[in-house]
């Protein structure tokens, strides 16, 4: 458990569920849970591919078969993914990714079928309605999956970030990561912030961080953020599989150690 957490027992299982629903799986089929990592060569410069590795292992350690499908430009995006992942990248890569994803359509089909999209930094920005690129702030249309718009901010947000996330059960937990973005993001009425900023810039220095709309989650921190925040990883998996997941003992001590060390670092340096 993270050092700063409220309840002693996290993620209580839903009492109404049949017993076996708390453990596996990908109901209906025996097929492995498909985690689709989109355009690593375009949106992969900040290590966010680690989010795919974390999700996969956290399923496998629970006995749920999982696979990571890496899709590169020119290859079709499968429409039967359970989780789609977008990561950080540079301006030109953002424009290319939007163009290719719109032409392909697989991501949109997958989301219509109930999949989760977890998008980080540049990937988060392209999920919005518009974003800007380059020194001349050229406006580009996004994927329109989140009611957010991004423009170049007054300063670049670079550094450790600490936010407080309210989990589905109402308790809160810290999210820790490293933000590195020039774009500042404003939320429209359809989107709600993922978390409140405790330290760092977040969306636009307005105290909010990230955006949630249905099963689409956008957020700024790298780390990768799911490696720094296993509860958020499990939340993504719960959303995708529509089951509550019991806490996972594997790696918990190290996760706690890392979270404690990073939280201390931020508090020492602010």
């Amino acid at each position: 458990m993270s050092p700063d957490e409220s309840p002693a027992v996290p993620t209580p299982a839903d009492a109404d569920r049949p017993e076996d629903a708390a453990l596996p799986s990908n109901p209906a089929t025996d097929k492995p849970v498909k985690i689709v990592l989109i355009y690593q060569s375009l949106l992969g410069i900040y290590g966010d591919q680690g989010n795919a590795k974390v999700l996969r292992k956290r399923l496998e350690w629970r006995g749920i078969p999982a696979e990571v499908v890496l899709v590169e430009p020119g290859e079709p995006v499968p429409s039967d993914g359970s989780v789609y992942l977008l990561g950080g990248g540079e301006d030109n890569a953002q424009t290319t990714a939007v163009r290719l994803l719109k032409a392909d359509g697989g991501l949109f089909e997958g989301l219509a079928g109930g999949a989760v999209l977890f998008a980080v930094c540049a990937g988060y920005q392209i999920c919005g309605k518009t974003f800007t690129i380059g020194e001349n702030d050229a406006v580009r249309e996004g994927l329109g999956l989140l009611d957010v718009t991004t423009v170049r901010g007054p300063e670049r947000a670079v550094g450790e970030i600490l936010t407080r996330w309210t989990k589905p059960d109402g308790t809160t937990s810290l999210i820790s990561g490293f933000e590195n973005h020039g774009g500042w993001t404003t939320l429209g009425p359809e989107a709600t912030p993922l978390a409140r900023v405790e330290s760092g810039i977040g969306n636009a220095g307005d105290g909010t961080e990230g955006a949630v709309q249905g099963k689409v989650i956008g957020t700024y921190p790298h780390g990768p953020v799911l490696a720094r925040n296993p509860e958020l990883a499990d939340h993504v998996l719960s959303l995708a599989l529509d089951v509550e997941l019991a806490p996972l003992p594997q790696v918990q001590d190290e996760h706690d150690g890392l979270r404690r060390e990073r939280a201390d670092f931020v508090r020492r340096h602010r």
Partner: protein
Amino acid sequence: MTLVTDSELSRRAAPADLASTERVRLRAATWIGDVAAWASRRLGRGSGASIRGQVMTKLAPDAFGQLVRGRRIASVTGTNGKTTTTHLLAAAVREALGGDARRLVTNADGANLHYGIASALSTAPRADIAVLETDERVVKDLIAKGRPEVLVLLNFSRDQLDRNHEIKFLGRSWREALEAAGEDGPVVVANSDDPLVTWAAQKAPKVVWVDTASTWSADAALCPNCGGMLDRTERSAEHPTGAWDCPDCELTEPQASYAVIGDQIRLPDGRLVDPQLKVPGKFNIANAACALGAAAEWGIDADTALTGFRTVSAPAGRFSTATIEGATVRLVLSKNPAGWSESLPLLVSDPVVLAIDSVAADGKDVSWLWDVEFEQLAGRHVICTGPRAYDLAVRLSYAEVDHEIILDLGQALHRVADGPQPVDLIATYTPFQKLLKMGGLR
């Protein structure tokens, strides 16, 4: 005796003759810088090169510009391999100069910013040949002020993204500096495997292309010229990442004069040479191929250059062996995911020690740990050390690699002192410098 094949290196240059006031000012700055460096060494704070340079830059703000003027300069830059390539090229020049080796000055300690270069040059006012490791951000100034004759462009990859937000930015600055220099610009020795290097080098009056058979292409998806998606041919032994081409504009992988083929280097005349370097790793064969291309521009034949290369074993402590806390440790420095990807296959010991820090010189964001295939260490035991050991430990857990955390460097080495020796260690910049000091190597 001199082994230079023609008049290339025998032509002597005269380091800039300064106006007398300038000379006095620079001499005073150099003297005070020397005192500061001496004090720094006495206090055990490193070689003193940085402090000397800082003092000089303060007292004689154009020390860099004055000291590079009038020398015959070969400069080496790129994300990875600068220090080793500089050492290889300097060794080739030294070999060719024979008894005249005092004509050569080089910043062997890896201090490659303005003041590091100024510091090195100030120690040898009469040396007319300079082989200079040059930080990517300083290349532009060096081209403008020092008019290097040869410029080696090794590679570009993600590195310290907390301050270099856009990889392309540096490539553009090189390209613009070369364009501004025009016909006075240097002969560029450039890695043709790297699209951004290729694009930057295009503006040089002459380019010697080197096919380095590099394995890292993760930062080269888009055409630096037009933004199109680059095509790549099938991977092969000669082209581990495939040959690249832009379908939307004319930028394409150039035909190379030098090529790395397995552990050998193909020369422009078609001859294959086995470099038999004292420094390990495929990436150092690529560095040697680039250094051969640069040496040839100064009329140094391949055999002479290779003889020189073989005198290089631990450039600025890299790949050196030290005894620390009772353990015999082989020290490897790696600063970014491309560097780590190249270095991990060099590890042969079990256990191995991996040291991670994240102060400014290392890059503050260690997310890159997830861009490195640590899975290849499965079956071995890893000691995670340094201030960011926890990040590494989590990464290794998800790679299912057995490991333990010992935050303190000294204790981590003490822990492996009783096992089989030597122990292989990779460190980011800051712990690497600490280890050199602990091992008495600087």
